[in-house]
């Protein structure tokens, strides 16, 4: 049959047997789970058996490309993976940009499934349907930038390269992969899973064109989106420096500061040394976009002069979080550390959290100088560079820290957990608690992976702590939230029931990620559910309404949840970190945790009540925090009902 939007093929690569085979994409699978994140979640249900060790050959890695990937749909440059993550033990996925999904489709595939384990290092080449496992002995031990450059030299720079560094090779749970040197993918240990399989990199490109069903209708939607982009008054600022240009203090407060001290520092001095003006004047050399993105948010930066002259760094917009939290008091030192983290393939947020955690344990006397080989966990550039190396290469205390919370607990005892800000084993450092509870926090606690860029990103309050009630009501229309549900969300003395709302932000995320669209705050506003339904229908010829698409998002989220229910996860694991209840110290005094509209100080009981509301809005078992048989059957997930008793 002829596919539109989709290519119509799944590629299976068995690293053990080196067998490569193609499978036709089932149309019912596509209709029910849309693509990318959704289809990967559904396939993972069949392929990833519960209870397996993430670093053994039984684990499977899936990469997806949505039906909009490879087209001119603005922002359709995302790719999502699914695997069992060594950091959390959850079966979960995350996204990356820079067009890996588009190139995978041009190479001829909607999905890539990797099983088994290679006997020696290899990289996977997928070029125009020519699929080959190539010996990577000469790449093993090289960092990600070196690996990517060499693969571009060999296969051409229009290829997309997804590669791991030494952190992944050394099976660090804090490792991930990079796409084209600049886009992270794989928080939670994808780097280690690839490393355990001896899979150094994947290269993809091709000349297989992507057809759409109704070209005129498709172009019409693209033109609407581009008109909105051109009319966006903040476009120039976003492309210069993303959100950081707007309000340094406000944005920095959202991105993580001195988590453990719960203290908001004086940012005036920080701005003079590490702020956007310094960055724009001295460091940034070029902006880079993901595939088909009209609001580029990645940078290439380079240090000229000084101790680290010539150091180049590729990333999504630069913030000084790392410098402030880890006590690095120069822009050059900040860039150098970020470069090392990128080259080695470490999770930047996970690393920050882990080092802060280790510092806390050191201050508590749980970790001593005998354990650290003399390291005192002091702030500062040299100490941080040393720790980055030790964690990457598993030397000394780095061998413990590389594994995240589980590594620390194994060595120093379970009582360490009380000092760790985490949900499901993943540090909350990416977006730690601010003084207002948002969908981000509910999503972190109830989501399958823990804290990362997920459903909480699609939330008017995400970057706008002063977001009005009207903006949330408007969001309800955008997200195709049924009227009666919106009434429940608004029917509360807190004006907004963030627990109930989070259910819909998660479904929205599931759809955007299944289409291949970018969920970042500066992009997701372009894509109300109705517009996504329109462009999906135009691309594929499968007519779908906004509410049907919202339902598909619900189905996808439930499958992702069930992958983890059968691993034993339930409400007992959906825990808010205890430090949520420590007040935040600001220049204006202490701020306790409050709801979005600051109607009350939130207690543990309030948070549990919001969780009750979240599960209720999902139609789940409120006590267990998992889907009910009726809900699964309603969503066509009958096959999962038998797994409910595993929670």
């Amino acid at each position, binding site marked *: 049959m002829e596919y539109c939007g989709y290519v119509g093929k799944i590629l299976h690569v068995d690293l053990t047997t080196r067998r490569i085979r193609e499978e036709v994409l089932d149309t019912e699978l596509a209709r029910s789970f849309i693509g990318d994140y959704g289809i990967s979640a559904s396939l993972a249900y069949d392929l990833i058996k519960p209870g397996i060790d993430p670093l053994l050959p039984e684990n499977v890695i899936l990469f997806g490309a949505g039906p909009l990937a490879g087209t001119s749909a603005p922002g359709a440059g995302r790719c999502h993976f699914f695997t069992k993550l060594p950091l959390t033990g959850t079966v979960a996925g995350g996204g990356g940009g820079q*067009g890996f999904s588009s190139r995978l489709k041009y190479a001829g595939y909607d999905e890539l499934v990797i099983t088994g384990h290679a006997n020696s290092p290899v990289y996977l080449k997928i070029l125009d349907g020519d699929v080959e496992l190539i010996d990577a002995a000469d790449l093993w031990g090289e960092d990600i930038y070196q690996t*990517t450059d060499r693969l571009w030299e060999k296969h051409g720079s*229009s290829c997309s390269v997804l590669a791991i560094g030494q952190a992944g090779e050394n099976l660090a749970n804090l490792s991930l992969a990079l796409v084209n040197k600049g886009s992270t993918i794989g928080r939670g240990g994808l780097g280690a899973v690839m490393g355990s399989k001896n899979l150094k990199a994947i290269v993809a490109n091709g000349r297989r*064109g992507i057809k759409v069903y109704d070209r005129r209708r498709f172009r019409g939607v693209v033109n609407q989106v581009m008109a909105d*982009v051109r009319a966006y008054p903040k476009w120039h600022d976003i492309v210069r420096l993303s959100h950081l240009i707007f309000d340094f203090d406000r944005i920095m407060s959202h991105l993580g500061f001195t988590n453990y001290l719960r203290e908001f520092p004086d940012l005036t001095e920080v701005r003079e040394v590490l702020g956007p003006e310094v960055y724009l004047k001295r460091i940034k050399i*070029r902006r880079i*976009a993901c595939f088909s993105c009209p609001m580029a948010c990645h940078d290439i930066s380079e240090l000229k002069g000084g101790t680290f002259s010539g150091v180049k760094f590729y990333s999504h917009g630069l913030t000084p979080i790392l410098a402030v939290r880890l006590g690095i008091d120069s822009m050059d030192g900040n860039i150098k550390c970020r470069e090392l983290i990128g080259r080695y393939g470490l999770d930047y947020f996970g690393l920050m959290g882990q080092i802060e955690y280790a510092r806390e344990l050191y201050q508590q006397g749980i970790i001593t100088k005998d354990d650290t080989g003399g390291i005192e966990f002091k702030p500062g550039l040299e100490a941080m560079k040393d720790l980055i190396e030790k964690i990457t290469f598993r030397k000394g205390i780095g061998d413990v820290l590389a594994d995240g919370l589980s590594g620390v607990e194994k060595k120093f005892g379970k009582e360490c957990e009380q000092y760790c800000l985490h949900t499901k084993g993943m540090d909350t450092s990416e977006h730690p608690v601010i003084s207002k509870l948002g969908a981000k926090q509910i999503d972190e606690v109830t989501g399958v992976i823990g804290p990362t860029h997920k459903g909480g990103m699609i939330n008017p309050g995400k970057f706008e702590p002063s977001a009005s009630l009207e903006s949330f009501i408007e969001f309800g229309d955008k997200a195709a939230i049924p009227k009666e549900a919106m009434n429940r969300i608004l029917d509360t003395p807190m004006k907004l029931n963030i627990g109930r709302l989070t259910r819909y932000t998660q479904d929205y995320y599931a759809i955007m990620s299944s289409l291949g669209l970018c969920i970042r705050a500066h992009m997701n506003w372009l894509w109300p559910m109705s517009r996504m339904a329109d462009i999906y229908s135009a691309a594929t010829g499968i007519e779908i309404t906004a509410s049907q698409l919202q339902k598909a998002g619900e189905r996808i989220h439930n499958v992702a949840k069930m992958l983890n229910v059968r691993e034993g996860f339930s409400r007992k694991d959906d825990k808010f970190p205890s430090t949520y209840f420590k007040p935040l110290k600001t220049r204006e005094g202490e701020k306790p945790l409050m709801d979005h509209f600051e109607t009350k100080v939130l207690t543990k009981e309030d948070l549990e009540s919001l969780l009750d509301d979240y599960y209720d809005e999902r139609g789940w078992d409120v006590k267990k925090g998992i889907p009910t048989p009726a809900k699964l059957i309603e969503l066509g997930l009958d096959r999962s009902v038998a797994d409910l008793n595993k929670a």
Partner: protein
Amino acid sequence: MEARDIVVHPDSCVRCYRCQLECSFLRTRMFNPEEAFIKIDWNWVNDKPSISFTDDCDNCGVCVRACIYECLTLREKG
């Protein structure tokens, strides 16, 4: 269309490939950057693009309209 040139400002290129997407969509009715009449060769050493046009390009300007970053502009000849 022969009466105008497409002027390239490579420093403005952000590697979004929208020019190639729209060119190939117009020419082949499919999205296929490698078949576009505008070529982007990214130098990964100095991180600069080399942007050129094939002999088939007739300066229709669809790539110019696709580029929001003002990397491509149309200039009337003469």
